[in-house]
């Protein structure tokens, strides 16, 4: 995807309304389709909309390997697999990658340990995932370094999205095929699931309130002076 196009997409919907900032931290990863699902109370176990039962079990184990249970609950207890299933089912471009990637992970587990990924112990999970995670971190670091340059070539042409319910929908993003022999498949899968797990966990009640200790959204008679001492 060329630079101009990438910037144009990034700007959609961000300038006109509230001058939001283009931070990675301001966006939920992988959600290009913006739907408002009704607030429905949970009734009974969740039925995945996209993943089959085996895939969902592998996904759940992977999410919990990324954010495990410690003194606070992990990804599964926080409902992260449900979140990931929802996002992937609503955003078709992730589907081939998620499916092929989970199949690859399961295959690796069988090859290396002759067991399902869901049956690996923590040391085995680490052995399998660490090199992939390291590669993801390396790519991110290189991308950050490459950003120290200013884009001056070409004119940026952009629109601000009109999201009136009556306006025509934006064209669908064409899913990129994720062939099983894509050498980058493990890294792409891990990046996708890690990003979705982080978003899902730290926006959950468990992750935000219990783990991180969020205590805002309340009334303060006055804003307190800082009492934290450095060092």
């Amino acid at each position, binding site marked *: 995807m060329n630079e101009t196009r990438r*910037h144009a997409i990034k700007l959609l919907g961000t*300038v006109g*309304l*509230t*001058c*939001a*900032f*283009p*931070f*990675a*931290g*301001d966006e*939920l*990863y992988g*959600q290009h389709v913006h739907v*408002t*699902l009704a607030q*429905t109370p949970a009734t009974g176990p969740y039925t995945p909309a996209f993943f089959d039962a085996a895939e969902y079990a592998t996904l759940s184990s992977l999410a919990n390997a*990324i*954010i495990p249970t*410690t003194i606070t609950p992990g990804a599964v207890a926080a409902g992260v697999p449900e*979140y990931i299933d929802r996002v992937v089912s*609503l955003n078709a471009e992730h589907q081939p990658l998620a499916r092929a990637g989970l199949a690859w992970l399961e295959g690796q587990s069988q090859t290396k340990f002759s067991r399902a990924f869901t049956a690996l112990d923590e040391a085995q*999970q680490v052995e399998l995932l660490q090199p992939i995670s390291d590669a993801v971190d390396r790519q*991110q670091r290189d991308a*950050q370094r490459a*950003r*120290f340059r*200013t*884009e*001056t070539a070409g*004119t*940026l042409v*952009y*629109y601000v999205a*009109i999201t*009136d319910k009556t*306006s025509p929908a934006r064209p669908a993003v064409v899913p990129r095929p994720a062939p099983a022999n894509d050498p980058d498949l493990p890294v792409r899968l891990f990046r996708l699931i*890690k990003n979705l797990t*982080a*978003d899902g966990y*730290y*926006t*959950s*009640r468990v992750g*935000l309130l219990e783990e*991180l*200790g969020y*205590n*805002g*959204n309340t*009334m*303060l008679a006055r*804003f*307190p*002076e*800082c009492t*934290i001492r*450095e*060092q």
Partner: protein
Amino acid sequence: MQNDFDVVIVGSGASGGTLAAHLARQGVRVALVEGGPRVNTRTDFNTHAMPFDFPTRQIPTMRPGKEGFDSERSRGVGGKTMLWNAVALRLSQRDLKGRTFEGAGEDWPIDYKDLAPYYDVIEREVGVCGNRDGLEDLPDGEFLPPVPMKCSDQIIRRAAESLGAKVVHVRKATLSVASKTRPACHFCGNCMAGCDVVAKYNSADVHIAPAELSGQVTVFHDSIVREVIVSDENRATGVRYIHRVHKREGEVRGRTVVLACACVQSIALLMMSTSRRYPNGLANSSGQLGRHFIPHFTGGIECLLEGLAGKPATNDEGFLDHAYLASFMHTRKRNYARSFGAQLNYQNRRFAGWAKTINGFGRTYKARVKAGYPAYIQFTPYGEMLPNPQSFVDLDRDRTDAFGLPQARRHLQWGANEEALFNDMVRWSLSMLDRAGAEILSVPDGPAPNHELGGCRMGRDPKSSVVNADCRTHDVPNLYVIDGSVFPSASEKNPTHTIMALAARAAEHITERLRKGEL
């Protein structure tokens, strides 16, 4: 058709609301035409929602069944002031006179002393908190007491001071003490999702509602203006609109027309209002309409401050940013013109999207995110853009919205000055953050446009500008434009306070002309 208004204002945000209220106090009869519905800031926004209330964790702006702020044009009575962050900064003489001071950009046809009395009026009327810092490039005003800085602000303030820069208390149109009609801010932390007690200024509650009660102002909501009507005698006689809900057309007539639709939409409306006399857009005999588009550019940095890592999480959302890095480059040697400032700690803590950028996985990863949570900040510098011929706004007639209106299109190209300024502001930001003991999580891709300014530039020469120093169009003697589009130069400062001051100033001018029978 409604006929007998003195002034028809299109748009009900900071400019339209201020203007309507000031005119109404002088007994002027005003029609305020707004494309969106009425919105109740006390009940209609998801101000206190949390992400886990929603299956995809996206918090919708409006509560179920409520309409309004779901489009580019911020349609709703009150405009963008319903969701703004309320930063209220005065421009300085140096901001207004870039060409005089350093031969770059354009001078405003007015001076700081022309604007200062109106900044005073707005500050007294809406309530702006802040500290009097005595800085030449960030003029002081009549402030309510400032709000304490956050821990992270103080760390960055010390780092900035060691490099000779000043971090000051933010100046915001949010009450730090109660007024007769509005309570003080209680720091629930989500100003940009609406303010359900109106401690933060919004034009609907603070300016428009009292003006309507006076009987002088009539609000036409859900009326999307598609054209300014101009008579054969070259007088603006009113506006033609499409009703947002039932799609029927209507007109509002008056003796004076003011466009206050926010920068790009005012430009688009003039471009849509073509006639035999104005084939290239109304008030565009100069060909300058849409030219000199000069949005602010930003390049935010995310980081973790070592001094706060691993500390207990505190409730420090406050009213979003509490501190501001004042412009300091005007007096330094540099290889570019103009300057930058920065907003600090803009985020609320209901989301930790930055956790995606933390290395690793498993227990170590989880512990790193937890330690980083109280230490995370965003540092967002804003720079001034100089106009260039490649940066302008026009209409894309092949791309229409649900009402059949052509969509506005922004063309933007950064010039050599923007490149140099952007690189320097990122370099300075990183230097300050480094002194503050920060671990950098992300740096910007490149300059990103923000507050939209320019396109109906104010000037003395009708050949090179669209409106005069009173915001009146050179071409049509009873047509005005008052919003960010009239800025001849942008400065790096958030523009709303200046837009409101311009509206208050224009209200006096229009009232005077109505009295003299000139309109």
